[in-house]
Each structure stands twice: as C-alpha cells, then as structure tokens.
C-alpha cells in the first residue's frame, strides 16, 4: 500500500467535478491532503485552480464528486458551515470589509472563530482577549501601525497582507491560500511566504497554496499537483513533478500560446 492510503487525509476530494453549461471547469479531481503537508496547486491560467478552491471551500456547488474533511462528507455544506468545521480560505481577489478598520477586520474573523457573534449586551471593543490576539496577529503580518486605518486607505500590498491575516485569524485546520503574494512588492512577499511556511509540518493542519512563481513553489511545497483544463495531470514531490515531461509540455504550450 502506498503511504497515501494508510494515513488519514485531513482533506480529500473524490472525483470533484463542476460543469458550467457545457464547459467542464473541474473534471473528476481526486486528491488527498495530509496533515503537516504544504501542497502547491499549479497550472496555466484557466486550468481550474481557483474553481477547484471554490469547490473545496464551498463557494460553488459541485456537479459531481465529494469533499471530505477528516473523512466526513462536507459536499453539501455551505461555505460558512465548512469554515466553522475548520476550513479557511484567503481569496485571490482581495475580499475584505472595506469600510471597517484593519483591526476590526481581523477581530471579526476571530470573533467568528470563537462563535461570539450573537453576544448582544457586551461591548465588542471590551473583549480584550480577542483584541490582544488581533494586535499580535497584526504585528506578525506587519500591519500593526495601520490597525486603526480603514481598509480602503490601505495599499494593495497591505490589503493582500490583511487577506492573509484574516485566514490566519480563523486558525483553521485547512489553510487555502490563493496566490497570497500576487501584487505584493518584492520586499513584502518573502515575509508573507515565511508566514505560510511557518504553517508547514504542524500537526492537525494542512496547507493548500495556489501559486505561479516556480521558485516559491520549489522552496515551500512538499508536494505539487498540476491541473490542466480542469483535470489532475500530475501529483508528486516538486522536483519530480516539475521535471516531468507532461508538465514541461503543458507549460511550454501555455508559453507558446501566450506569445
């Protein structure tokens, strides 16, 4: 038996498929994500990476196939319910609470995690436990000096950092990053990637990372899966996958059509 099947997967998709009209955007993707592992999901533009993420985190409904979280079927659960069960997602296009402050954004995520949203008679700003935690997290992502600023006043790079912070604030078991450093300046990106790397190897956690930069993937990923036209094309250790003929072909083809 391969190692895959003996160990329990934290997250698993079985034959996950979604059709938009006649177009099959994700086509029967079966994949297991183990504890402590950082899996990079790569593929050319339009390969279905983000759509796959949307299926896993519940933003869109699968046409066929299943999503299992710790062996339990969550395919029919809403995105919100999946989050409450320990899945967390950061978005490719920044998706924050624009009119609220940076601190409030993070605090809201922590408040959701703790299930304290229905408290009506205490002061939200009196919950020091969460506020302290939020400040610590903002310090980690180097946003503490901007804590009181509204999100709309932040630079694009800082908004991307906050996007990552919101996911960290949820303390999920499944971390899903969708190009976390896209649009970030060259001196900010490594710091955010360090945070992502820090999640590797932790018990009870698994990290999924959609990323384009090959050097980043080579350095961070324990494993790579390649999607192409919605189909799982390759799955294995980074060096092996990246040097494989089929992946070279896909990326070369992409490069040629781009020209």
């Amino acid at each position, binding site marked *: 038996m391969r190692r895959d099947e003996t160990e329990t997967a934290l997250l698993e998709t079985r034959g996950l498929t979604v059709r938009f009209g006649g177009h099959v955007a994700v086509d029967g993707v079966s994949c297991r994500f183990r504890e402590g592992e950082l899996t990079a999901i790569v593929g050319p533009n339009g390969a279905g990476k983000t759509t796959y993420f949307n299926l896993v985190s519940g933003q869109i409904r699968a046409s066929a196939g299943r999503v299992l979280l710790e062996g339990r079927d969550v395919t029919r659960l809403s995105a*919100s319910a999946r989050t*409450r069960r320990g899945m967390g997602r950061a978005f490719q296009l920044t*998706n924050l*609470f*624009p*009119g*609220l402050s940076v601190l409030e954004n993070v605090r*809201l995520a922590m408040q959701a995690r703790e299930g304290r*949203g229905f408290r009506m008679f205490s002061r939200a700003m009196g919950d020091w436990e969460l506020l302290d935690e939020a400040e610590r997290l903002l310090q980690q992502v180097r946003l503490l000096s901007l804590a009181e600023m509204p999100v709309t006043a932040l630079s694009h790079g800082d908004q991307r950092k906050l996007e990552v912070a919101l996911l960290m604030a949820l303390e999920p078991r499944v971390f899903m990053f969708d190009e976390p450093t896209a649009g970030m300046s060259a001196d900010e990106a490594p710091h955010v990637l360090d945070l992502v790397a820090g999640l590797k190897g932790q018990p009870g956690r698994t990290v999924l990372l959609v990323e384009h930069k090959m050097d980043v993937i080579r350095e961070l990923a324990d494993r790579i899966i390649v999607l192409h036209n919605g189909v799982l094309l390759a799955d294995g250790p980074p060096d092996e996958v990246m040097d494989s003929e089929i992946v070279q072909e896909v990326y070369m083809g992409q490069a040629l059509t781009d020209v």
Partner: protein
Amino acid sequence: MTARRSWLLAAVVAAILAALAAAPFLFPGVRAMDTAARICVFIVLAASYDLLLGYAGIVSFAHVMFFGMGAYGVALASTHLGREAPGLVLGAGAGMAVAVVLAALIGLFSLRVRAIFFAMITLAVASAVAVLVSQLSGLTGGEDGLSFQIPRALSPAAKYLSEPLTGIDPAALPGAIFGGGETGGLFTEVKANGKLAAYYLVFASMLVLLALMRRLTVSPFGSVLMAIRENEFRAEAIGYRVVRYRIAVTCISAGIAALAGALYAVWLRYVGPDTVLGFPIMVDLLLMVVIGGMGTIWGAVIGVTLFMLARGYLQDLMAAAQGAVAADLPALAVFLEPDRWLMWLGILFILSVYFFPSGIAGRLKAGR
C-alpha cells in the same frame, strides 16, 4: 472602529436630549410638549429603522407597519380590556409579539434569497396590512381609527400637585435680562397632571430603548451586522450565518418599532391608519434616517429632531419672515407664503442630502 469620537456630535445629541428632558418646563404650551413627545417616539422608531438600514444594510418598507402593530395593540387592549395599566402592557406586548413573529416569517421567506427580495416582500405585506386595517372597520375602526382611554394616572384629568410647577419661557428671556419686558412673563406655570406624567413615560422609555439600541450596535452582534453590510460574501466565508443575523436584527427592530408605536398610542390616545400606518410616514422615516445619517444611532436623534421641528414650525417661521419682508420685498414675500412650506421643506432636504451625503451625524463625526 474607525469612528473617531467627536465631541461636536456628542454635544449636539446631548443638547437635544437635555432639551427633551426639560421640554415641558422650557417650551410652554400644549403644542410644544406634543412636538417633544412625537420627537421622542420617532427617535425610537428611526433608531430601530437605522439598525436595519444603516447597520445591517437591509431595506424594509414595513417598518411603519410594525410601529402600527404596537399602536393598535395598545388601542385594542384599551378598548376591549379597559383602561387600566395591565391591559395597556398586555396590548403593547401582544402588538410587539405579532410584529416580531411577522418579521421572522418575512425574514425566513425572503432573506434567504436576496436583500432586494426582502424589500419587495415588505412593501407587499405593508400594503396588504394597511388595506386590511382600513377594511376591518369593525375591529380597527377603519379609516376613522380608534379613540380610547388610557390609565387615569396618565390622562390630563389626573392632578398630582395642588400648586403648578414653575417653568421658564425662553422667549421672555431677553426682556427679563435687558429689563425691557415684564419680568413676570419669564416664568410660566406647568401643571403637574397626568399629561406631564405621560410625557415623562414616553421620554424615559425613549432613553432606555435608545441606550439599549446603542449597546446593541457596539456589541459583537452589532459588529457582525456591519461586517455583513460591508461584505456579505466574506462574512459568510469567515463562518457567520448571515441569514440568521439578518433575521435576528429584523425581529429586534420590528419589536422596538412596535414599542415605539405603543408609546405613540399612549401619548395620542388615538390610532388611525394615517397616524400610525400610512406609507407617507414610511417616507418621512426614511428621510429622517437619511438626513440624520445612516449607520449611527445618534443620527436618528438628530434627523428626527430636525425633521419634526421643520415640519412643526417651518410654516410659522415663514409667516414671520414673510411679514418682515412684505413691505420692502414683495417678490420675495410671494416665495415665503406659508402655504408653500412643503416646497421649502423639500428644498431643505435636497440641500441637506446634497451637502451631507453621510448625514448630519456622519458630517459631525469625522469631517471626512
């Protein structure tokens, strides 16, 4: 919270509340006290509407219907159960219960789908209820409404002190200070009767409900409402059950609106479709909230006060202004014809929305 605390906003709101607290002693006359009581009731109504509109970003056209339910609850209970206090409380409670249940039903059926669908459903239900109230004249008094008696302790016939209390007439103040007028005119007599007691019941209830709503908006629950307003999709994605929060705030605001209606009924000792249910009131309410500033409870206080004062006294003000310019500028006097007060009210509102898009409270708060 990005909102920097603004002393100007706090001062304005404190001044309004202080003026309302002292209204019977500061502004003599039945009409002034009546205006003050209406302001108190509508502050509660507008603030509860702001919970929906400003905090949760939900547009409802049924808010005045819930207000009417509380009012009719009191009216029906007082008519059928007698004028004593327990019946009044029961009526208010029943009106509130019906409002909350109906709000929950509307929310369950429509908030799952889309916020705009909720707006349309509330419009339909509110129209249906308004028709129903005017048709079921046997029960509701139809278009004529219901006049009823309230507990003796709150009616003008109840006397509490043998001697009247002393109030001050600010209009006589300059005369008193500069010695021009009669000094005696400065002081007015305020009868310590049931009407005064009723006013303070309305005022105290307003303070309690306002404090409660204020607390709600700064609570974790309130913070989730704002998160949903800002980005429903992300609120859902970080694990909040958006529909539940929406239904909860719909029920809470409906319940408070019903209580405001009950207070209004106690004050007026009358309910009718035009006073507690009509669509024109819904439009007024929207204006009050928008002018005052959405998304802050204090905005409701300012918006209601301005609106009610304009509506109550603009005509008088125009008559005075017309008299002043009639001799010298007859052309201007035509425009200041008191009968045209609604036009001027409209112009004032357009200007205020144009210059203060975030409402007066929003403007006072940050100067952003």
